[in-house]
């Protein structure tokens, strides 16, 4: 079975043997891409500011999201395999960056789904108020309007919240956060070890042993 660490070192060696051409090519590519993204961003802002047809806030938001994702993708490609005495630190930083990106994507996905809820809620509210078939007593106070808005919002949310897409997005958001926390803690623990300070992992190991010892002791006492 291939060893990922060995593979990473070999990949670094391969690139080094290439005279660094691959790394330089990647950086150039990123620069070109970055300029392209900047141009696209400017066009998007210009189009929105001039009030061109279709230049809604939603379109702007969508465009910005696309550009943001493109930028993240290009940025990710910059990474080169770690090598040498600092390879562990570089890898740790890369992992933390990767988990942060994953978390940002997950936040974006949940936000997208929640924005559809908001749109749906508004449509439901309009329908409840304005449709010819809308039934119910007249809404004569702001409080009644607020309550109707809450009803519409909850109904809209329920539709999305029960969907598989939303459950998957929520789960991904949670797990992305968990992995980000893991990488953060790992780095903090590295620092703690450098100063000979106790870490959560070590305390957990002690608790685990204590728990097991207590269990064995209880079983012995029962005999």
């Amino acid at each position: 079975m291939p060893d990922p660490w060995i593979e990473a070192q070999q990949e670094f060696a391969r690139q080094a043997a290439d005279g660094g051409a691959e790394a330089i090519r990647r950086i150039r590519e990123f620069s070109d891409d970055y300029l392209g993204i900047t141009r696209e961003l400017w066009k998007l802002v210009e189009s929105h500011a001039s009030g061109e047809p279709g230049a809604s806030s939603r379109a702007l938001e969508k465009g910005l999201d696309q550009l943001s994702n493109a930028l993240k993708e290009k940025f990710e490609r910059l990474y080169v395999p770690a090598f040498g005495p600092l390879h562990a630190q570089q890898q740790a930083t890369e992992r933390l960056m990767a988990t942060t990106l994953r978390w940002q994507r997950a936040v974006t996905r949940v936000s997208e789904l929640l924005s559809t809820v908001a749109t749906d809620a508004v449509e439901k509210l309009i329908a409840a108020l304005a449709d010819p078939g809308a039934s119910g007593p007249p809404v004569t106070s702001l409080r009644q309007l607020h309550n109707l808005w809450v009803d519409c919002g909850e109904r809209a949310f329920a539709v999305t919240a029960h969907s598989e897409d939303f459950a998957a997005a929520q789960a991904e958001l949670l797990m992305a956060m968990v992995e980000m926390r893991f990488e953060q803690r790992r780095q903090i623990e590295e620092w703690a070890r450098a100063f000979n300070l106790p870490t959560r992992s070590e305390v957990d190991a002690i608790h685990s042993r204590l728990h097991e010892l207590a269990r064995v002791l209880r079983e012995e006492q029962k005999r």
Partner: protein
Amino acid sequence: MTRLAIDVAQAAGEIADFSRRMAAGACSLAALEAPGEGCSARDDVHHEERVVLYRYRPQAASTGLPPLLICYALVNRPYVMDLQPDRSLIRGLLARGLDVYLIDWGYPEAADRFLELDDYVNRYLAGCIDHIRRTLGVPAVNLLGVCQGGTLALCYTALHPDGVRNLVTMVTPVDFHTPENLLSKWIRGVDVDRMVEVLGNIPGELLNATFLSLMPLRLTSQKYAGIADIADDPAELASFLRMEKWIFDSPDQAGAAFAQFMRWFFQENRLVLGGLVIGGGRVDLRQIDCPVLNIHASQDHLVPPSATLPLRGLIGSHDYTSFEFDGGHIGIYVSARAQELLPRTIAEWLEKR
């Protein structure tokens, strides 16, 4: 044609009035005394690590029925059972002459992350029941399991049928895979073991955020706007404050037990589908042959009726009673209607057995 008929001048007045009432409500809330945890006299009669067993002092002549042990959920604090004198299931039960005990699971700390469901069911809950049986010289107790505590009570009763004379379950999830169960849908894609490996104990704040997000507008915006309606009523404001404290008083969850509960119940639905083993003992609901009263709330968003009603077909007992409370998951604990209805229902059902 529109239903919208808001007069602008009237709306301006409404905004001013709402602001005035909210400000008054905020002032009154700020001046209220900090709410306590429970209101009825009780004694702590048994400890094991963080778990405390309380026995409530009698408030009426004894019925002579076996003691009633309340097993509450791990995810919130049990004092909601005895929130204030006019909102207390425990007081209602005491007033009917029952001998009431309550388990307080405490607040798990970092050292508790390796506690498993085996510890909760076969050690803490079993320890409380053994204590009551031993000290009172009774062969079995009446067990009232509430919410997740009901699920634990089912597991205990299936594993130790001799310890339970009658079982009452209240808003208790049994089938975790019914279509209305939103919480279950959200949890199914989560790697709970990895989550616990990284986070250790699961923070109560995370659970709170999850519960609130089940009905995000109703449980935030609408609830707090309601302060304006009770701004001039100190007693209602005090009740509101007590409920707020309770809702956000969520203990962290012992990591290993949380992971097991999520995986075995929410993800794998083992209580219904089988294969649930706790502490080496197979949990088979057919082993429950004592009388069972299953109380559910018709508008429960956390434990929908569909999640609890399948109990009837899963247990071995032929003495099964279902009771529907017209309300939600919180209303069943603290609504004015519940205060007389539920203690009476439980006490009368027990008296017949």
